[in-house]
Structure formats: structure tokens, C-alpha cells
């Protein structure tokens, strides 16, 4: 039986395949850069300060910042002081989105961040480890004249991490603190048109609730959601990619089953990678337009996690199977040392995600970072996952180093071989290295684009054409890994060419007898690539 397609393909054909993939890659980048808008949008809201005139804190009453049933409001707290309104009678009201706009299921998710404008007063400053207690309620409605329906209600505590930019003195009197963002709401689906958030900061001196949090001037809410345009481009991309990967996957598996031998580990791992890629690709998000599935955010996390774990495992096994030493691997259990950390790290992140986004399905105001225990727990999970990642990359780098050392070792023996064999092996080594290079390039490109998207301001403009760098990053990287998996399955599928065909191949004029001898001497290692067999043979010699 012959090796993988990558070995039996001519350089010209390989270039054509590479070219086509490259074109698709460019298209993926341009799709995000030119067609899609920025991935996310932001709504800035400053809360309207309403007065609860009824003095009835238990009855459900919604405070609207504007519109026909708007609340009685004050423009600043100096006014409250004059009118002798107490802190407990003040309700911060925020309507999402702006007047005359409405939310849409295409926005996919919505998260709100709270910021407090706290002025420094020498007689009323923020005390150490101050906590702010929020009485938050959220409601929705679908037409402007309808009644508000409660979505969630909770009493939340958040740490107040603020610092004064200037030293505490008379000059800084009245200056605002610089406070960390306080995550407030996270919704996994945007099924309704209008949302209303009412926040109270109840004061209780006996229980020390909301005491020593300084003088609050304003409450601001920043709401982030995915842009409808980006969602549409994203869905379109997924809908196109799913069948592409699915078809190549079926083709690949058919190739493997057609062989007389049972599939080897590397082939299985590639197939599993294809499955995990398809799992990400399947556009189940289409349902979120019609159904109020709040778990979509969590589901997306899980899907991504599975793919990452699969990809990392694949890299390790790929390197291991090309080690070209005497050891026989071909079983997953041989890789427990390397795959173990991946599995463990993934589990840690999964538990962490369940603690954060899982609980948010029940209570959208929940945040694991709000409490000390939660923060420690979350940090523990993340640190363990980080250690696992470091361990993994240590192993991976070591294995890559070993492979290259072995290859150079074999290369020194090449001149002693016959010319045809030598050319053949040189080609194989070149292609193996080429594939390593592609993997590295993909990883590097991901990292570079990630950093670029973090640093720059989201879009570049050339002669009136705006390129959305962030969107290009998402579609480009997503497209890239899809193409990577596609290329992997295509090039590493077993070649249908038999030895007779090899003769006709202009590139590889391998003496069939020699080839036969080469392959038949290896009885134990039925590796998918020539390099692998070469390794086995050399070792036996």
C-alpha cells in the first residue's frame, strides 16, 4: 500500500492546492474586513436618577427614564439633598437600548458593565475593601406601550476597587476616583426588544450595607452586544464551511475504510479533529433567532473548548508518530503524559465556565468574581489550567526538537543511499517540514492577529474604505483553522496510487522493487507516511 497523498503528489499539484487554500484564506479575511461590521457594539447609558415617591420598596413598580410613564427624576444629588430625599428612595433607571431603537435576536448576547462615578470628599471617602450592595431588577417588553415583565431580580454584592489619581489632599476634593469596571449583567440571548434595568443601592447602617462607599455622582451602564451584521456574516460562513468539512471528512473516512489494514492512531486523531471542527461549524445558532435559548453562549464555549483540546492533542500525536525512533506508539495510552495535561486543563476551564456562565443561566447578575471565595476558586482553576498549558507546551517543544534532531540524523545517512531513494526521502522530509511550517505559521498568524486586534482601535481606513480589523481577525482565523483541518484531511488521506502508479509519477521514479523491499521489511509499523516507514526501516537496519 502507498503512503499519504502528500507524499505521492507532485510539487506542482501541491502548489495548486496550496494556492487554492490561500485564496480561500484571503476571502475569509476580506469577508470580515470589508463586509462585516465591527463584531460588537457598545451602548453607553447614564442612569437616570428616579425618586421612589411611593416609599413602597416591595411592590413591583418599574421606573422608566423617559417616555409616557417616566419616573420623577432629579438631575443631581445636590437636588436630593435640598429636597431631603434619602438614598433609599433613589432608583437608578436605565433603558436598553436608546430611544427609538430596539434590540434584536441577531445580537446574540448582551452584557452590561456598571461604572460608578464616585467623587472624593475628605469627609466621605471610600473605605478599604468597600463592597457595594445592589438591588437589581431587570424587565423586558416587546412593544412600547406594553407592560414590563420581570426577567430577573437579585441582590448582588460587588467589590469596589477604586483609586484616586491624585494624592488625597484639598486639591483632589471633588475629583473622581478611578474605579474598575463592575460586571453586572450577562444574557446569553437577546430575545426581547426593550430592556429596563432598575438599580437601588439600599443603605442600612446597622448591617453596614452600602456604608463607606464614597459620594456617588453617577451610575453608568455600558452594554455590549454582537452586531447583527457580524452575526449574519458569521452564520453565512458557518453554513458554508459545515458541508465543506463534512464532505472532506466523509471522503477521508471512506479512503481509510477502503484499506485492508485498520486505521492507525494518527488517522483516527485527524478524523476526530474533523469531527470537532464540524461540531463548531454546525450553525445551530440559527435556532437562536427563533428560540430564546440562553445557553447558547455556554454551548459555544464548550464547542470551542473541545476543538482546542482536540487540536492540541493532535499536534502532540502528530509529532510523536513522526519521531522516527524504535519505539512503537500508535496507541493513545502512550501519550498519556502529554494528553493528560490537556484533558485536565480543559476540565478545569470547563468547571470554571460552568461556575460562571452556567450559573448565569439562572441568575444573569451572577459573577464568580464578586465574592472572595469565588475569586479564589476561579483563580485556582485558571492557574491550574495555565500550569497544564505550560506543561503541554514544554512537551510539545521537546517533541518537535526530537523530531528535527532525528530527521537531521537520517539526513546524514542519505548520501549512502541510492539516488532514487535519496531523492524520495529528501522530498518526504521536505514535505514533513513544510507541514510543520504551515502549522507554525497558522499558530503564529493567530497570535499576531490576536495581538493586533487587542492593540489597535478596531478599524483601519484607506481612501474611504474601512477595514474592520477585529472582524477580519475573527473570520480570518476561523477560516484559517477550517482550511487547516481541510488540508490535513486531504493531504494525509491514504493515497490510492499503487506502486505501478508511482512509476508513472514524474516526480517519484522509485524503483518498485526497492520500494517493495522498503515497505515489506517494516512489519510492525504501518505508519501512514513514508517518513514514518523510513524511520522504522532505518531503525531496523
Amino acid at each position: 500500500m502507498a503512503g499519504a497523498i502528500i507524499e505521492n503528489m507532485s510539487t506542482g499539484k501541491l502548489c495548486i492546492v496550496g494556492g487554492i487554500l490561500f485564496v480561500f484564506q484571503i476571502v475569509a479575511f476580506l469577508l470580515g474586513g470589508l463586509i462585516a461590521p465591527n463584531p460588537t457594539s457598545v451602548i453607553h447609558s447614564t442612569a437616570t436618577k428616579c425618586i421612589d415617591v411611593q416609599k413602597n420598596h416591595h411592590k413591583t413598580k418599574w421606573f422608566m427614564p423617559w417616555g409616557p410613564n417616566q419616573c420623577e427624576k432629579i438631575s443631581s444629588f445636590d437636588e436630593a439633598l435640598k429636597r431631603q430625599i434619602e438614598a433609599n428612595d433613589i432608583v437608578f433607571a436605565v433603558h436598553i437600548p436608546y430611544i427609538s431603537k430596539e434590540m434584536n435576536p441577531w445580537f446574540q448576547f448582551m452584557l452590561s458593565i456598571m461604572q460608578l462615578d464616585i467623587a472624593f470628599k475628605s469627609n466621605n471617602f471610600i473605605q478599604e475593601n468597600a463592597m457595594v450592595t445592589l438591588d437589581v431588577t431587570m424587565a423586558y417588553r416587546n412593544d412600547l406601550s406594553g407592560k414590563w415583565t420581570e426577567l430577573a431580580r437579585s441582590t448582588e454584592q460587588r467589590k469596589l476597587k477604586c483609586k484616586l489619581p491624585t494624592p488625597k489632599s484639598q486639591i483632589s476634593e471633588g475629583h473622581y476616583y478611578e474605579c474598575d469596571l463592575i460586571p453586572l449583567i450577562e444574557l446569553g440571548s437577546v430575545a426581547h426588544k426593550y430592556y429596563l434595568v432598575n438599580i437601588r443601592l439600599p443603605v442600612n447602617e446597622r448591617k453596614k450595607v452600602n456604608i463607606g462607599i464614597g459620594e456617588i455622582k453617577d451610575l453608568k451602564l455600558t452594554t455590549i452586544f454582537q452586531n447583527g451584521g457580524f452575526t449574519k456574516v458569521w452564520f453565512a460562513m458557518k453554513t458554508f464551511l459545515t458541508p465543506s468539512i463534512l464532505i472532506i471528512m466523509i471522503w477521508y473516512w471512506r479512503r481509510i475504510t477502503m484499506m485492508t489494514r485498520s486505521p492507525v492512531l494518527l488517522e483516527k486523531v485527524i478524523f476526530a479533529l474533523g469531527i470537532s471542527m464540524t461540531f463548531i461549524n454546525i450553525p445551530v445558532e440559527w435556532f437562536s433567532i427563533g428560540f430564546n435559548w440562553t445557553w447558547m453562549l455556554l454551548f459555544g464555549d464548550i464547542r470551542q473548548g473541545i476543538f482546542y483540546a482536540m487540536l492540541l492533542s493532535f499536534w502532540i500525536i502528530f509529532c510523536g508518530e513522526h519521531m522516527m525512533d524504535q519505539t512503537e506508539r500508535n496507541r493513545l495510552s502512550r501519550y498519556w503524559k502529554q494528553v493528560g495535561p490537556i484533558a485536565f486543563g480543559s476540565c478545569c476551564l470547563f468547571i470554571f465556565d460552568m461556575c460562571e456562565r452556567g450559573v448565569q443561566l439562572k441568575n444573569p447578575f451572577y459573577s464568580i468574581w464578586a465574592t472572595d471565595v469565588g475569586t479564589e476558586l476561579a483563580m485556582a482553576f485558571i492557574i491550574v489550567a495555565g500550569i497544564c498549558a505550560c506543561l503541554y507546551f514544554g512537551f510539545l517543544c521537546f517533541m518537535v526538537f526530537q523530531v528535527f534532531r532525528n530527521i537531521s540524523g537520517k539526513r546524514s545517512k542519505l548520501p549512502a543511499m541510492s539516488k532514487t531513494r535519496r531523492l524520495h526521502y529528501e522530498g518526504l522530509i521536505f514535505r514533513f517540514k513544510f507541514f510543520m511550517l504551515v502549522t507554525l505559521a497558522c499558530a503564529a498568524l493567530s497570535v499576531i492577529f490576536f495581538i493586533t486586534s487587542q492593540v489597535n482601535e478596531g478599524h483601519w481606513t484607506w481612501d474611504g474604505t474601512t477595514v474592520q480589523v477585529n472582524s477580519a481577525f475573527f473570520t480570518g482565523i476561523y477560516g484559517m483553522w477550517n482550511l487547516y483541518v481541510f488540508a490535513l484531511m486531504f493531504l494525509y488521506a491514504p493515497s490510492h496510487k499503487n506502486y505501478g502508479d508511482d512509476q508513472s509519477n514524474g516526480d517519484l521514479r522509485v524503483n518498485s522493487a526497492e520500494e517493495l523491499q522498503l515497505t515489506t521489511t517494516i512489519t510492525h509499523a504501518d505508519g501512514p507516511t513514508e517518513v514514518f516507514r523510513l524511520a522504522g526501516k532505518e531503525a531496523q537496519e
Partner: protein
Amino acid sequence: MTFKTEEVSEQFSDDRPKGRLVSLTSFPQSAPQQNSEFQLKNEDEYHTLNLIPYLIEEEGDEGEEEIQAEAPDLVYPTRNIEWVLSSQCDSHTLPVTDPETFLSAAKQEVHSRGVASGSAAGSLWELLLLLGMHSALTETQDHESGAVYAYLIYSSSVAAGAQSGIEECKYQFAWDRWNCPERALQLSSHSGLRSANRETAFVHAISSAGVMYTLTRNCSLGDFDNCGCDDSRNGQLGGQGWLWGGCSDNVGFGEAISKQFVDALETGQDARAAMNLHNNEAGRKAVKGTMKRTCKCHGVSGSCTTQTCWLQLPEFREVGTYLKEKYHRALKVDLLQGAGNSAASRGAIAETFSSISKKELVHLEDSPDYCLENKTLGLLGTEGRECLKRGKLLSKWEKRSCRRLCGDCGLTVEERRAEMVSSCNCKFHWCCAVKCEQCRKSVTKYFCVKKEKRERSGGGISRKKDLRLKKKP
């Protein structure tokens, strides 16, 4: 003076400013359906109306009642001034149906009165007066056309913004020789010339910054229905705007409206006008320049694979501090000599100003000596001003204020003691203090007085301190 009036009205018939103001009305209006919101607008504008007489009052009081100068609350104006103003507006039934004629008529109205009372064109003063007129009109006439409504939506915010700019100016210059007097807003018209010094530059910058800031902030309060959501800009495909790409920043909106309102006041085409426009722009750039970029990560498990960043408005004080620095480093442009009104010199002016960074403040003249009273320039001098000394927590600039205001101006420092009753030992909540005690404390304040006057008055302070003060030159 008569000549001046004519010139002004002629300038207003120019196409440029009108075009700018009228373009305001092209904003989408959903006004007619929202009657209740309109009620609220009225309430806001009521304060705007109050603002103007307040300014008039302050002018006269300058430097007379410093004893109570400790953090005065906002002084509300006397009713009769307010009444006079509104009744003046009422007496002229301005045509409201056409915004263009309405605005120009209102402007001319302001001008004829402004000149009569000794103030003139192109000033912030005029802006406030104009907006005050509008609000008076709103109160009396309920049948606005949509166009005027669109203008009125922003007018209260613009007025409030200009006011916040002035307050910031007063704060920033509290311990300088020039302390941002209300007269600065009229930009001294007595000589028939508007001043074009460093201080004028600052006033222009801070007020346009204030207008932009307030508009941006009020956007996020939900006061306007089209904040940053100009559908034409984001709708890259099929104009689906909001759904496709959300809204752009509110700051852009605040900037645009501020530009339309504040820059429209500048009607001339000479070097002064160019300078004022440049400084207005510098003020707006200052708001943008002090904005902070904030990011939030929300990727897989809350990681930073996905993050969203946005610009956040700073405290307005930061804008003021930033502009104060720019004030100290303001650039002088020598353009006044020989610059006629010809097209060639206009080109030269435009070229000169375009070569200067938009972030820098620009002035044409040197500042006058603010130590001395100068009636022709409308300066009050530093005599009678309060200054600070020996505070524990004072900055260097504040500590030197007595020397700067009094000593260097040939005045001496007088110490005055006053008993003050203030609330103390308050229990504070996050809003609204509760349970305070009344405390009496004596405070020592320092004032600049003329040397001879001090020698004559003699008493009032203990001899010890008298001696010590005399030792200091």
C-alpha cells in the same frame, strides 16, 4: 457704535452661518409623537432662562462681597430681571414657522439689544442670550414647527454645556490674576474690537469643550433619540444601520452638534474669526484627547480572545486641566498687522491656521496687564481679590497666589478673620448627607488691598500680624 450694528447685521445676512444652523434641522425628528418628553424639555429650559440674569448679576458684584466668598451656592436670579427678559422676547412675535428666518430674526434681536446694552457680536454671551430667548419662546408658544423643535432639543444642553465651561474656567483660574470674569464672555467690545488674547482663546476652547461634553453626556441619558445613530454612516449594506452595525460613539455626535452651535457664532472671516474657530476646535480636541480607552474581555470563559473597547468621557475637570496646560503653551500668531479683508489675506489666514496643530490654543494679541483696573478693556484689576496662603494641602500654584495677585501687582496682603457657621460631623451615605451638626469656626482669609488704603484703615487685625505683614514687601 451705529456702524458696528450695521456691520453685524450685514454679517448675519451672510450665507455661511445660516447654512450651518439650518443644517441642524436635517436631523431626524420623531418629536411630534413624544409630547411628554417635550414637557420635560420645558422644565430644563427654565433653568437656562435663569442663567442669563444670573450672569448679569455677577458682573456687578465682582470684587465687592468677598467675605462670603466661601463656596457660594448657585445664586438664583431675582425674578424681575427674568421677567424683563422674557417679556422682551414676547413683545416681538418672531416667526416660528421658518427656522431660518426665525434664527436670523432672533440673532438680530439679540444684537440690537446687545449693542444697546454695550455688548456685541460673536461671543458666548450671545449664545446664552440667544438660547435664553428660545426657551422663553418655548414657554409661551406651544405650536412649534418640527424644525425649530430640532433646534430646541439641543439648545438646553448647549446652554448647560456653555455654562459648565464657564464654571470650569472659573475653577481653573480661581487663583490667577485673570479669573475668568463674566465680562470675558462678552469679549470686551467697548473699543469696537474683540480681544484676541490668550484668555480669549481659553474661553473659546473651554466653552466649546463644555458644549460637546454636555451633549455627549446627555446623549447617554437618553435625552435625544438619534445619538450617534446616524444611520447613513453604519449601514454599509442596505442601510440597516442599527441592526447591522450598531451606533457609533456618542462623542462624534456631541462634536458635530457642538461644532454647529458654537462655530456658527463666528460670523466674520478675519483673523480673529479664524482664531476663535481654531480654539473652538482645540476645545473639542481636548475632550477627545482626554478620553480614556476602556476594554472588557468576554471571550471563551471570559478570556480576552474577544474584547470590546470603547472611549469613555473623563471628568470635565480633566478637560479643564488639560486646556489650562494648553493655555500656558498657547501659540501667538502675528496676523493682525496689515491684514485686510481681501481674499488673498483670507487665504493667508487659512494657511497660517491650518499649519498649526488643531490641539494647540492660538492667540493673536498679548494679554493686557490684569493687575490694573482698565475700564476701556473692562478689566477689574486684582485689588480686592482673595488669595491663599499657608494651607497644608495647597498646591504650589495656590500657595503662591498671594504673591502673584497682590505682591507682584504692587498691592499688599490683608488678613481678615471671619466666623463661619457650617455643618460638620456629618454622617454621609453615598448620596445625601444625613444628621449634621452646626459648627462655628473662625477662618482667616487674605485679600489684596492698596498700600495706602491699608495704612489708613490700620485696625481690624491684631498688631502682631500687622507687623508681620509689613515686614513682607
